[in-house]
């Protein structure tokens, strides 16, 4: 199955090998053939995509195309897209047609991408397996009985299966990096504040960040150049110039250092994953990188701290869903209280309600200091420990997940078991530092992800390390068995 990168497609479009309309038709055909099994897409925007593709072809013909002009792309269904459904994987927004575009959406549209659809996700980005979606679970293309990870499971599955060359995602506790690890692709989360959150439906405002799901780090760099930047409409947007990430990928790594925290290699780490990670570190050694051991003594506190802070912020952010101005509304309520409580009871799924309840509790009178304030202090402890690593090393590395993809239904009854999946990714969100997961091997037949973590605004360094690794190895080129047949897509 042909799975071409954005860079390769861009070159082909510009030298006339194929047109954007041809690429878009191929993408739509693959989606149509694969989606009944994968369930990666909630909405497919076929007509609009062809209109955009023809416009892109005109730009290409005139010679004023950019590197992303005419490239098919999918947005996670958490980004507001004007005139198209934005559901966040929830019944609460199953009928919501956004009146405006998110900044990420308008920036990528201006860069010329062709939007083919909105991808499935855990409801309101809360989940690590894409099983909490109102629209049903997404399946992992490597094994259809397994989870692709979450919450950006639809985006990851779509890219891994070759339905689109790239997709956007969001990462609050690992929701880009973990699905990338489970599906054998590259998942990039920039520094908090690097990409605008305007129009990106809020889950936990101090943790949420938009990023990319692609085959390669080079493609992530191309997308990041278009997506990143200061936005006056996002009060947490960082006022920092966007470097030309694409031109910084090839710097040699000799003499640089990687720090590996010993806490990443605990008893919970699957042995197949561990072997693949250690082999990956050897590749960096061969490139002249010095590997040193570090310690993050409070790493284990990151899961409890996150599961106080994120639910607290979510309980506040989700209080806007009351059935009045938009979204699901319980019919025939007798009074306003019944309207609120029934709308919210019926509109939200079980995991979302659990997190709203947890968050409400930890913020309530009598508990705020013991839980929320304490969690914020622990957050400072963990962030400072991670940031201090960069006084000694250029990059911190380790596994993205403790195990490869688990089976659908395996952890849905036990929320705490599900939460513990995020043990290696969460500290990165607490500190707001950038991180990427790249494929580095297999545990049995399932992909394993290597996580690289950088200092604040160290995206260029991260992409450089990831790209140099991908030039030495071919894990990122391995494809899952085709989810569709060529016949079906003709």
């Amino acid at each position, binding site marked *: 199955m042909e799975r071409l990168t954005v860079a390769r497609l861009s070159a082909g479009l510009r030298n006339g090998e194929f047109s954007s309309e041809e690429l878009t038709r191929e993408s739509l055909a693959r989606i149509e053939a694969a989606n009944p099994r994968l369930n990666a897409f909630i909405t497919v925007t076929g007509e609009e995509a062809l209109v955009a593709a023809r416009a892109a072809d005109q730009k290409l013909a005139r010679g004023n195309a950019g590197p992303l002009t005419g490239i098919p792309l999918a947005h996670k269904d958490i980004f507001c897209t004007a005139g198209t459904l934005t559901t966040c994987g929830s019944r609460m927004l199953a009928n*919501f*047609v956004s*009146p405006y575009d998110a900044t990420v959406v308008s920036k990528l549209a201006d860069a010329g991408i062709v939007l083919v659809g909105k991808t499935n996700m855990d409801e309101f980005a809360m989940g690590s397996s894409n099983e909490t979606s109102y629209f049903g679970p997404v399946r992992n293309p490597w094994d259809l009985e397994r989870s692709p990870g979450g919450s950006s499971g639809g985006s990851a599955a779509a890219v891994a299966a070759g339905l689109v060359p790239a997709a956007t995602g969001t990462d609050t506790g690992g929701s880009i990096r973990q699905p990338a690890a489970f599906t054998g692709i590259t998942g990039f989360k920039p520094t*908090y*504040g690097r990409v605008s959150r305007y129009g990106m439906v809020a889950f936990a405002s101090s943790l949420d960040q938009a990023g990319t799901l692609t085959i390669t780090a080079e493609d992530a760099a191309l997308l990041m150049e278009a997506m990143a930047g200061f936005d*006056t409409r996002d*009060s947490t947007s*960082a006022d920092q110039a966007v470097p030309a990430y694409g031109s910084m990928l090839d710097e040699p790594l000799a003499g640089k250092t990687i720090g590996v925290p010993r806490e990443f290699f605990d008893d919970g780490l699957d042995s197949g994953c561990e072997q693949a990670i250690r082999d990956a570190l050897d590749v960096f050694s061969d490139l002249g990188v010095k590997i040193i051991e570090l310690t993050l003594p409070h790493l284990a*506190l990151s899961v*409890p701290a996150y*599961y*106080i802070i994120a639910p607290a912020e979510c*309980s506040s952010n989700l*209080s806007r869903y*009351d*059935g*009045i*101005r*938009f*979204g699901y*509304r319980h019919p025939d*309520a*007798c*009074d*306003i*209280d*019944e*309207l*609120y*409580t029934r709308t*919210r*009871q019926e509109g939200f799924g079980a995991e979302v*309600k*659990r997190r*709203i*309840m*947890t968050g*409400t*509790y930890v913020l*309530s009178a009598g508990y705020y200091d*013991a*839980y929320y*304030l*304490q*969690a*914020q*202090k*622990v*957050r*400072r*402890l963990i*962030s400072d420990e991670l940031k201090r690593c960069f006084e000694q090393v250029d990059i911190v590395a380790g596994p993205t997940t403790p195990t490869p993809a688990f089976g659908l239904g395996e952890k849905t009854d*036990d*929320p*705490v078991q599900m*939460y513990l999946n995020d043990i290696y990714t969460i500290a990165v969100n*607490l*500190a*707001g*530092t950038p991180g990427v997961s790249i494929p580095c091997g297999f545990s049995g037949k399932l992909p394993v992800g290597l996580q690289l973590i950088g200092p604040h605004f160290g995206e260029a360094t991260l992409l450089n390390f990831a790209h140099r690794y991908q030039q030495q190895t071919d894990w990122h080129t391995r494809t899952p068995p085709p989810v569709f047949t060529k016949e079906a897509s003709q």
Partner: protein
Amino acid sequence: MGLTSKEVQHIANLARLEVSDEQIDDYVEKLTQILDLVDALKKVDTTDLLPLAHPLQMSQRLLADKPTEKNQRDLFQRNAENVEQGLYSVPRVIE
């Protein structure tokens, strides 16, 4: 530390969620498990640590008090089910 059904009902009221009698036990069980997980934080010595609310050292950016958006009420109200004369219609609010 276990939550009681009464506490769960109180939290549900604060969050404007309706929890039925059948669902209460499941909430008590699952929320207790989550609170057991996060209890680990209580033992951490955080004296002299300032809470971290935001990962970047930023203070709230202020804007000049000049309007930049235009009124698009009709566009936004297309998503509302019950609108009358530009107002959102709701069931009875006061007894």
